[in-house]
């Protein structure tokens, strides 16, 4: 039953080994999968393996340096660890390029902080309440965000919203577990989708039909 699912944390959809940017001869996206039209051509060309490796080395070196307070003797472990770590992304399928909007990121971070407090307070109150007001169940939601970082962000953020938990992705349908199925799910997810689009500077998606 799990045979079709590669070991990818939040996406069970098939992942091509190369991005469309690397393979211009690949067929166009399947219908229903919106593609960020604002993706700049330069950003796509920049993601050669060497660039990716160099970027990983840079980020990992900064993290290692900060972790060890820039101690020179720690480099005995640091250099191999950074090189090994930077090699791992090369073994994984390339992800679709994405970019962040600074304004969207700030707004999203603030909103995210408020929502995670709301979510935690909500679940804490339910846990402490003597009668435990739960009405758990599943709801399906059709994913409209493009594959890759925006969708991963969407699915992971749902888990931190009040009362919702992303449970399974099958093709383009996300199965959400709700602590209280009497709560309205679609407005909350539509709102989150708009915020993710702002965060990744994506154009507006297809109109929400409901």
């Amino acid at each position, binding site marked *: *039953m*799990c045979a079709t699912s590669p070991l990818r*944390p*939040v996406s*069970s959809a098939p992942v091509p080994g190369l991005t469309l940017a690397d393979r211009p001869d690949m067929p166009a996206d399947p219908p229903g999968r919106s593609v960020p039209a604002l993706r700049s051509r330069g950003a796509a060309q920049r993601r050669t393996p060497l660039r990716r490796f160099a970027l990983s080395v840079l980020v990992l070196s900064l*993290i290692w340096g*900060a*972790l060890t*307070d820039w101690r020179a003797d720690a480099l005995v472990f640091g250099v191999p660890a950074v090189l090994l770590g930077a090699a791992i992304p090369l073994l994984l399928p390339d992800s679709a390029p994405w970019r962040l909007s600074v304004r969207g990121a700030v707004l999203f971070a603030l909103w995210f902080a408020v929502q*995670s*407090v709301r*979510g*935690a307070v*909500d*679940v*804490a109150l*339910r*846990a*402490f309440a003597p009668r*435990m007001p*739960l009405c*758990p169940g*599943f709801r399906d939601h059709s994913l409209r965000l493009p594959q890759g970082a925006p969708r991963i962000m969407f*699915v*992971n*953020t749902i*888990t*931190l919203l*009040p*009362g919702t*938990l*992303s*449970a*399974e*992705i099958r093709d383009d349908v996300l*199965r959400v*577990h709700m*602590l209280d199925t009497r709560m309205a799910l679609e407005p909350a997810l539509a709102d989150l989708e708009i915020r993710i689009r702002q965060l990744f500077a994506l154009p507006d998606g297809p109109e929400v039909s409901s």
Partner: protein
Amino acid sequence: MLDLIAAFFIASGTVFFVAGTVGLLRFPDIFCRLHALTKADGLGLALIALGVGLLAGTPGEIFRIALVWSALAVASATCSHLVARYALRSGMEGRDD
């Protein structure tokens, strides 16, 4: 004064950890328990990290605390998704005890 604020953050973080554990023990099935763990413990760690960060002396310490928090935030959401997916696919849906 800073100590007091930090103590307040750490104490409230602990309350959320307790809430997450209470939820883990009381909630009826695996999915509800995941809600308790990801959300309550996530905020609990964020509050404790905030409190400890206020007490931390060096930028390096603050960076390490922030790194711990961000790693946990990503890992807990991803892991809870994986646990829920496994539970769904192995047919634990709707099983109460």
